[in-house]
């Protein structure tokens, strides 16, 4: 009995999800430390990390939105479009409404953002889950719809003039002890924007949601094997439906966060950001085939992408094409690394199984 208890307590081998997540965390750390050593400068200050978070809060949120549907075996490429639409709609609403209470006006704007996301989520979820249309097509259509609506709302850029909101944009959490002393002797504290905090909260909430709730586990099950999930008594349709709803709402939220970072609407806001989000998910260890991945990995995936961006901006190669190529190379490298690691792991597993079998055989013979 004691032996059994020890056996139970023994750590299980890493699951694919954990393995891929650790790889991406490892690469992020290696890259960041490498940047600290070679580029120095900003990378030596803690503010650099916060800047990465501040600048990419919306990307982190939509990456989570993508991870959720990808674990369920789907895809959602409308996230960028929804950000664009939300930003434009919120900017117009903030400027145009005549509500005197500025807090109420901001809350209503937030609700508008979430509502737009929810609308897209519900519609896409319904089409994918209940009418069983290919998620790629559904969300591609969603993307076009969102971009089209954005242009209908306003062809021209819209700057937010609402004072309460601009106040909110300027609000930053300061952490003096992580700051640094500037050349003129002033202490400049580290600053985090509200959006970055929201993004971190989303990552944590989505992690818990995926790990500990019935819906979260059902999403993994559906992504792992849809037919099995059905046979196990999981309501596959509703699981898929809700994964798109969550994804949609997160996209709306990401739009609001984007507006808090750059308070202006524009027809080309967050254009192609869905591709970055897909890349972040994959680099973070989410498999396109579904069933494997988690948002912690995705978070680091997004951080890796934004670190590359920073590194290239600071290096002599500062040009957008270099960055694109670096992203592409990174993505390919990751996919390659993932498949190598998984292959080696499976091979090791098969070898171990064989050894156990041989041991048993020997036992039988003696």
């Amino acid at each position, binding site marked *: 009995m004691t032996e059994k208890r020890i056996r139970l307590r023994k750590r299980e081998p890493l699951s694919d999800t954990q393995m891929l997540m650790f790889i991406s965390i490892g690469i992020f750390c290696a890259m960041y430390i490498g940047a600290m050593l070679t580029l120095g400068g900003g990378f030596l200050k803690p503010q650099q990390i916060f800047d990465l978070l501040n600048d990419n809060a919306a990307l982190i949120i939509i990456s989570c939105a993508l991870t959720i549907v990808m674990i369920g075996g789907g895809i959602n490429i409308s996230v960028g479009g929804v950000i664009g639409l939300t930003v434009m709609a919120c900017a117009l609403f903030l400027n145009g409404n005549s509500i005197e209470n500025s807090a109420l006006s901001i809350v209503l704007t937030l609700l508008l953002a979430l509502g737009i996301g929810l609308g897209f989520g519900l519609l896409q979820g319904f089409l994918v889950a209940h009418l069983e249309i290919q998620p790629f097509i559904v969300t591609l259509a969603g993307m076009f719809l969102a971009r089209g609506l954005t242009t209908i709302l306003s062809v021209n850029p819209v700057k937010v003039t609402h004072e309460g909101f601009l106040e909110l944009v300027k609000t930053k959490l300061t952490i003096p002890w992580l700051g640094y002393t500037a050349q003129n002797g002033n202490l400049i504290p580290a600053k985090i924007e509200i959006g970055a905090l929201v993004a971190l909260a989303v990552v944590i909430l989505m992690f818990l949601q995926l790990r500990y*709730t019935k819906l979260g586990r059902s999403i*993994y*099950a559906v992504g*792992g*094997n849809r037919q099995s*999930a059905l*046979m*196990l008594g999981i309501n596959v349709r509703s699981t898929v439906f809700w994964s798109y709803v969550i994804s949609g709402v997160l996209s709306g939220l990401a739009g609001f966060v984007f507006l808090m970072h750059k308070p202006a609407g524009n027809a080309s806001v967050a254009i192609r950001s869905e591709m970055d989000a897909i890349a972040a998910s994959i680099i973070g260890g989410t498999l396109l085939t579904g069933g494997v991945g988690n948002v912690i990995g995705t978070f680091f995936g997004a951080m890796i992408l934004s670190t590359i961006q920073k590194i290239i901006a600071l290096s002599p190669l500062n040009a957008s094409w270099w960055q694109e190529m670096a992203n592409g190379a990174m993505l390919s490298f990751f996919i390659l690394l993932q498949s190598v690691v998984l292959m080696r792991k499976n091979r090791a597993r098969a070898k171990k199984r064989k050894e156990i079998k041989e041991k048993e055989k020997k036992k039988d013979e003696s």
Partner: protein
Amino acid sequence: MEDGIVLTMRGISISFPGVKALNNVDFTLRRGEIHALMGENGAGKSTLIKVLTGVYEKDAGSICIEGRDGEANIHSPQQAQNLGISTVYQEITLCPNLTVAENMFIGRTKDRIVRWREYEKRTTEILDNLGIPARASQELSHCSLAVQQMVAIARAVDMKCKVLILDEPTSSLDDKEVAMLFKLMRELKERGVGIIFVTHFLEQVYEVSDRITVLRGGELVGEYLVSELPQVQLVAKMMGKSLDDLAELERIGQKSAAGEETVYEAKDLSSAECRPFDFRIRRGEVNGFTGLLGSGRSESVRAIFGADQVTGGRVTIKGKPVRITKPHDAIRSGIGYLPENRRRDGIIADLSVRDNIILALQVIKGMNHPISRAEAEAFADEYIEALQIKTASKDTPIRSLSGGNQQKVILARWLLTHPQYLILDEPTRGIDVGTKLEIQKLVLKLAEEGMSVTFISSEIEEMLRTCSRLIVMRDRKIVGELTGDELTQAQVMKTIAGGEARDENE
């Protein structure tokens, strides 16, 4: 309802476009019995199971379950589960990316929040209780197939199921694992679970079952006590014909002799999956690779066909050296290969029967010489007729055919290319007795016409009947070659077991 009966199905009928799949079938299951459901492919076993589990809607008939008044309404697998009907399918229907404990509990707890610790504790209890060698926190994909299946059964049992359906549970297990499964089945029987056992293995039916229900062509043949139905009669009832066919085959098998010319020869052939081996086959010869599951017999023929990455060796065909590194090379050299895993490597599920048949020939002709529609139609007609493939039409997608008929289509695909050397890996797995005989006969006929055939089967009797030379493998190595008088079951067993094996009382 009569005492001790947990399930009655009365007058079940269902039709699909063009086919009456079940016609007025009755089925009764008692508490604590293992009830085998037997029949050839297409006899309606799977259909009956699917009606019972709510996958198909029946056209007529009634289902009654113990403890419920009146007819049970079953429209989905979930409803069936709620009524205490659980199914463990041939393909594992658990999620490989979740842990054992999660697979036990997902989809049936009301908890909105997952309580990992409790699930793992309860799972450990259940696994210990049933003697299943798995850990609760293990990812399911880390377990062997047999254990995965047992986890599926444990799940069903823990859901207080009254009716447990095991659909071909043993087809991918080796002997030891089968024994483990049977132990578990008997254990459950003691606890009063009614088990419906669907299988193709006759011996297994006689080993564990109490009662047998036989279906044929969608109709009920009858329900028998195992002790009152000899094996021979069971086969006769399943096939609806006498057993003379078997005897006839035995005679043909023995007289089939090979020519002198060597058709295919390999020296030190090795692949990523198998060790170097030598092999040759003569014109008109039927030989076989035998050995336990995993001994490397399939891997060897895959190397011959270039289906795995070939790592070395010299190959000659009719004396001429050739390089075969991918299936395309093999096909163009006149080798055909019917793969072990029909669903994965054989059929293209959504293509029609006709398109599946012409596939290999098209490869030989190359992309620039498309086979015309008229030709394709003619080929399809010819082989559907010749092999008696049961299909609604030649435009029917192959996936809607029964397993045996799909196998015939793949066979037709290769026959159409007139290969000089045909490799059949488990052509008779999972198909019914009648079709098995047809395929064996066909193999012998082809050999007589001069084709060389390698035939692999898990059923040794079948190989003894058809092959004139048997290559025995153990641990991925060829350990013996048997011909002529050595072709007896005892000798094969001895060779497989190896020199150091204990002498059994023979």
